[in-house]
């Protein structure tokens, strides 16, 4: 039962760290309720991005280090929505609607490249991400957008690195249906959106195609012999991941209040990858529980450590501890997985 819940040594360590941080925050008179409210927002803010890794992980392609590709599609959707000056929730919806077809096209191209390098997808994806970002930098510099709020104030050409969303749809989801409970602000609309995304992914992996994808992830040779169209399944997985990633950055941007262009997407894949590994997914099959648990643990340590560090006058210490523990856990997860795989083969 314990294994089912996904709570093992790494999760336990980070939980202990979290609880001790909470205790410390309590002693330092930092408002726990606001911390928890923040933690909930950050869970969803990053959760969809983390969720976007699942289709590729389950299809055996590995962690989507090429997340910048998906993020670019999302950013294009966001920029289009801002360019047409659509505000409020419709603005957010428009951004998502613009982003999905773009993500499908980009995802297809991305998938075709990944299909050429079977077995080395993760490192290839990393470099696809790295090389895609400069390409997009050029695009952002010459993009024919017309809303002056997005362009350089001087000269009026090329996109700004940071576009404020305050006049458009900043925090629209965060405040939707949010209510107060014991002093904690519960962003119900945001949580609901995340739940719907999770549900969609969950349902997909219960369908015939989803089951085939998991089988492909477990044993490719078997899938081939069973007459499944492997390259089609892999392309589908990558497209799904890219679409989810694009939706993810839309959620992230509206929550953050800014669209960040140029080099900002470059490193976005790593926190997401860390979160899913912290959640305990280092094997073949990744569950929604890994996503939620991992994102929550990873992001909550982040939320709590900031204020504590400020209060203790040594701002570096909490950050150092946080990086040590989260990165240590990622390393542990990878090492532990290697060991478990060996044991599994030895036993069979």
């Amino acid at each position, binding site marked *: 039962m314990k294994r089912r819940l996904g709570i093992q040594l790494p999760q336990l360590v980070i939980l202990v760290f979290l609880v001790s941080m909470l205790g410390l925050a309590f002693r330092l008179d930092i408002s726990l309720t606001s911390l928890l409210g923040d933690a909930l927002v950050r869970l969803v803010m990053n959760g969809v991005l983390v969720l976007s890794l699942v289709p590729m992980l389950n299809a055996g392609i590995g962690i989507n280090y090429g997340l910048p590709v998906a993020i670019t599609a999302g950013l294009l959707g966001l920029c289009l929505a801002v360019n047409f000056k659509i505000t409020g929730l419709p603005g957010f919806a428009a951004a998502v609607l613009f982003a999905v077809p773009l993500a499908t096209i980009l995802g297809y191209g991305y998938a075709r490249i990944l299909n050429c390098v079977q077995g080395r997808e993760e490192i290839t994806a990393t470099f696809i991400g790295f090389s895609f970002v400069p390409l997009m930098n050029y695009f952002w510099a010459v993009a024919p957008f017309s809303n002056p709020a997005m362009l350089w104030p001087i000269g009026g050409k090329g996109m700004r690195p940071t576009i404020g969303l305050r006049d458009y749809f900043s925090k629209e989801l965060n405040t939707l249906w949010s209510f107060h409970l014991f002093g904690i602000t519960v962003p119900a609309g945001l949580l609901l959106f995340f739940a719907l995304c999770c549900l969609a992914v969950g*349902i997909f992996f*219960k*369908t*015939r*195609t989803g*089951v*085939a994808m998991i*089988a492909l992830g*477990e*044993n490719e*040779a*078997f899938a*081939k*012999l*069973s*007459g*499944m*169209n492997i390259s089609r399944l892999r392309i589908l997985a990558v497209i799904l991941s890219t679409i989810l990633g694009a939706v993810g950055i839309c959620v992230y941007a509206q929550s953050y209040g800014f669209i960040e262009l140029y080099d900002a997407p470059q490193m976005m894949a790593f926190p997401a990858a860390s979160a899913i590994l912290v959640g305990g997914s280092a094997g*073949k*099959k990744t569950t929604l529980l890994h996503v939620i648990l991992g994102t929550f643990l990873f992001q909550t340590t982040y939320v709590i450590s900031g204020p504590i560090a400020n209060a203790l006058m040594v701002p570096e210490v909490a950050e150092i501890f946080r990086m040590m523990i989260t990165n240590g856990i990622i390393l542990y997860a990878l090492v532990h997985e290697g060991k478990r795989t060996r*044991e*599994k083969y*030895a*036993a*069979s």
Partner: protein
Amino acid sequence: MLQLKNISKRFGRHFALHSVNLKVERGEIHGIAGINGSGKSTLLNILFGNPLIAETGGYGGEIILQGKSRRIKSPQSAIAMGFGMVHQEPAVVHEMTVAENITITREPVFPHSEKYFGRDFAPIDNRKSHKKAQEALGMFGVALAPRCLAGQLPLNMRQFIEIAREISRDDLKVLLLDEPTAVLNGSDSALLLRTLKNLARKGVTILYVSHRLDEFFALCDNLTVLRNGAVSGHFQRDGFSRKAITKCMIGGSVILSRKKANLTCRETILSLQKFSVSMPGESIEDLDLDIQKGEILGITSLSGHGKMAVGPGIMGLYPVLGKMLIKGRQAERHDTAAMIGKGLFMLPEDRRQLGLLQDHGVAENIVFSAMHCAHRFLRRFPCLPLHFPDKKQINRYALECVAAFAISCTGIAQKVRELSGGNQQKVCLAKAMTMEPEILIVNEPTRGIDLGAKERILDMFIAMNTTKGTTLVIASGELDELRRICDRIAVLYKGRLFAILAPDTAESVFIQAMSGEMAKV
């Protein structure tokens, strides 16, 4: 020479071995018999210091080698004491050449270089290394190019590489063999047995684990039988009796399956014309073969002569040349999905890697192909184009299969990884039966399966053929089994059809045909 005293091993609460005592003299070939799960492999793993043993809490009892009590902690320590091991599934490095695999850790270096650079950094003399490898392989008359990459060779050749690696060691005192013939066919096994006898004459002690009785009769001086982790009998050479040993192994006797051959000529269902398959290590060239509707066709050959390539070639897993007519018509596409659509299905020889989803349950494995290729066991989501597996229907069907095939498992949700080889093969068969193929191609159906389960699986083939009229193509090196159940047996030699023989043809004729020594029929 080697004495084991009260060896015990526990995995959790379960005793895999329970106070096993054994005494082996120098130059003796000692057989260890037992069905799957009787503890044979565990015993060898202890002797070879497999890390799995240490990780799961070590072993109990005492191992005495040449009068000294020894504790074996790791493979390194076992090797240092003079143990060598040949695994059931060859442990060779696929990325290295044949010669590199054989001389690994004992590579010959250029003269004097060792003095200057030390053992670790002395440059390897490839010519000497190739010569050494060829000598080792020559001991059992296998010709392999030393430069060939091991990963490109078929399973049995990789097994020969592993054996050559062990027997070419100068410091070898005790050789452990864990069902080395599981991946070899009859004539390859004979080669191996001859080599082992020579080795024993040179003073090497051999512990030979198997469940093939014939090999014990041909090879062993003494025999110990294990059942449920304990010694259930000792036999000496002059006291060997098939009946007594079998009884000791399974506590009962086995009835051999047999089918009467039917040689009436029927319509051709699948015709191969000038069919070539390029499968590494096991290719076919210009094969002309007609498969008749409703027959059981056996395909046999020595290893590397093409019997294993027929199925994968037909299913489109490897590049092919030539014509393939299904019911007189050439298929438009030649890939696995199209072939499955035409009513063909194949069970590969490598069950673990290709035949099953190890981490999925029994039920999921049984219905998998039917669900994905034939769109069965599905339920449509109302108003959306989404198809979900129909759990109820699947479970009902899987329960029927488990009963019909006598698959012993804790339940239909048990992972197939945890099943024994025989039960895994039954799951494969159930999967194939669910597809209701017109033609079923099976590669090495009984490899690595113990006596009792073997016969039950052969019975299932016969039943499938007689009741459902399924055409079966069975590629196997187990001539004895083919002769019992087939209608016709095709013998391949160097990738071409050499002869088609009736199953009641004398065994010597088969052997001649397989080695290409008979006048062509």
